């Protein structure tokens, strides 16, 4: 009688799948649960590693959703400075599932947005994204006005996307013990002032991470029953930990928890898949080759390898994917054609100047 391992493919065995081939020749790392096609509207969000996914999908001809586009009068460089086009909406990095859930609850009006703001040198900063505008906002009203635009963009992404890609980054976060507000960063680090009486550390457990992400998936299904989620885990280690553990151990706890949650959500929900970017960068066969000398930042070759595996996975289920060469370089959107009224104004202005120089 055969045992269950006898007919398994080579990818099921460590020696044939991992140890024997050159690390860069390891294939079949992702078998998509559902295809993501170039015509699917795809939204991206999450930790900083998600930015690479946004860019690569655009470069390969996918319909990446820019739900909060920069105003057309800003140069591309300025748009980037103001954090437009980094993710599908202008939240900045969303490192934790609890922070994502907070944004989504506010966007879908399940909760009233928190009113806290930070001030420094007469400028106002959003505690959820203190670096979103260089130099902060000029007033509290302006900060909340800008946040309202972002919330509308998140709602649009949830309502209209075919696929929502989210990269889980951290389990550690800081909260306001009085209001429950989840911060994007520890107050006092890149904005705000730390107050030990109100600012409390949280290191989310597996059930907490799972529950927050499951809540997001369920809320999204209400407004968009066909939405699919693709989860990834950022391979970028923690910069620092407030857990009291060694940062190496804390990183392992955090990433292990996120990886387990992502896998279990993909098992539990038919509309959720997991893509192993975390493994592709950090696993033993790659021997750390994809990290910069700081052993934290991912080298461009690592990002390229992750994305090549991503697109190879899609091709394996019959999805057409453009190469970067096939994809036309994005050009600036065409200038708006002036209205007749505007053209008439220009003529009037020209006439005024000509008449001035008319010696007769």
């Amino acid at each position: 009688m055969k045992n269950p391992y006898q007919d398994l493919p080579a990818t099921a065995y460590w020696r044939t799948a991992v140890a024997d081939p050159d690390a860069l020749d390891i294939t079949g790392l992702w078998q998509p649960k559902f295809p993501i096609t170039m015509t699917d509207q795809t939204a991206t969000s999450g930790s900083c590693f998600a930015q690479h996914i946004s860019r690569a999908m655009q470069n390969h001809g996918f319909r990446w959703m820019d739900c909060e586009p920069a105003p057309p009068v800003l140069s591309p460089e300025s748009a980037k400075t103001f954090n437009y086009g980094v993710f599908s909406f202008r939240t900045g990095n969303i490192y934790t599932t609890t922070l994502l859930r907070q944004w989504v609850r506010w966007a879908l009006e399940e909760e009233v947005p928190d009113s806290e703001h930070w001030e420094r040198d007469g400028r106002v900063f959003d505690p959820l994204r203190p670096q979103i505008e260089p130099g902060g906002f000029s007033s509290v009203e302006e900060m909340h006005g800008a946040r309202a635009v972002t919330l509308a963009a998140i709602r649009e992404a949830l309502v209209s996307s075919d696929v929502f890609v989210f990269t889980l980054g951290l389990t550690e976060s800081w909260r306001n013990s009085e209001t429950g507000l989840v911060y994007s960063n520890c107050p006092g680090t890149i904005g705000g002032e730390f107050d030990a009486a109100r600012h409390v550390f949280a290191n989310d457990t597996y059930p907490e991470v799972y529950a927050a992400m499951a809540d997001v998936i369920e809320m999204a299904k209400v407004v968009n029953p066909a939405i699919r989620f693709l989860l990834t885990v950022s391979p970028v280690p923690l910069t620092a930990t407030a857990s009291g553990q060694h940062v190496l151990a804390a990183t392992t706890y955090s990433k292990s928890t996120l990886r387990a949650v992502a896998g279990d959500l993909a098992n539990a929900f038919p509309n959720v898949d997991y893509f192993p970017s975390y493994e592709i960068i950090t696993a033993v066969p790659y021997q750390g080759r994809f990290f910069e000398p700081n052993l934290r930042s991912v080298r461009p070759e690592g990002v390229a390898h992750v994305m090549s595996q991503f697109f190879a996975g899609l091709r394996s289920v019959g999805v057409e994917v453009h190469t970067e060469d096939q994809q036309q370089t994005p050009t600036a959107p065409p200038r708006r054609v002036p209205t007749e009224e505007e053209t008439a104004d220009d003529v009037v202005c020209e006439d005024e100047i000509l008449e001035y120089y008319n010696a007769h």
Partner: protein
Amino acid sequence: MPTDDHRFALIGDSNSAGIGRVARSRGIPFLGGPLSNGITLDGDFFDVEDGDFLPRVDGPQAAGFTGLFKAGLPILSTVGFNTQRIAQELHHGFYRPRGLDHSALSDNVLRQAIEDYKPGTVKFYRAAVEEGCDVYAVYSPQRFPEPWMALALRLERLLSGMLVEMGVSLVDVRPETTDEAGRLRPEFFTERENDQTHASDVWSAMVLDRFLDDAGIGVMA
């Protein structure tokens, strides 16, 4: 070329034409005049060569600006105050299609938008101040189409703030010429037919008088 008679220098878009006309009619000698339309002055319309202003604009008027930065004359400028154009662009290309009101963008974003959309304007004032000129910028006549009026005024406020930070002075006749909502009062409209933009020479005369006062320029009546 500047002469000893010149009392000031003038540069700008079509809104400077009336100011030049009034000065001429009063016999006040000045250097320059209207250089080009607002769109051109939004772009990169000049170079600085040997410390002087060198226009990149075609047309015989371009020759009239030699010495603008070197003559030591106070400069009266309407350059850049056509904020209706950027307001219109934002209104049609950003706010209206997305159903947003004008508060959706922060002052910082709009300041950067001014820098990006009007590189020539910003460069002009910076260069003039760096060359040691006393520069006086004139607020527009405050005639903008209603849908983007508030936005154009907000952009004008931001632009003037940027200029003040650079060391530019503002010539402001708005209190005497606008209504409670900040619009130019009809009695100051130009009499030209089909002109929804410009102000009359009465307005220009008020600007010139205010400038001469502010700059301490005495003129013989």
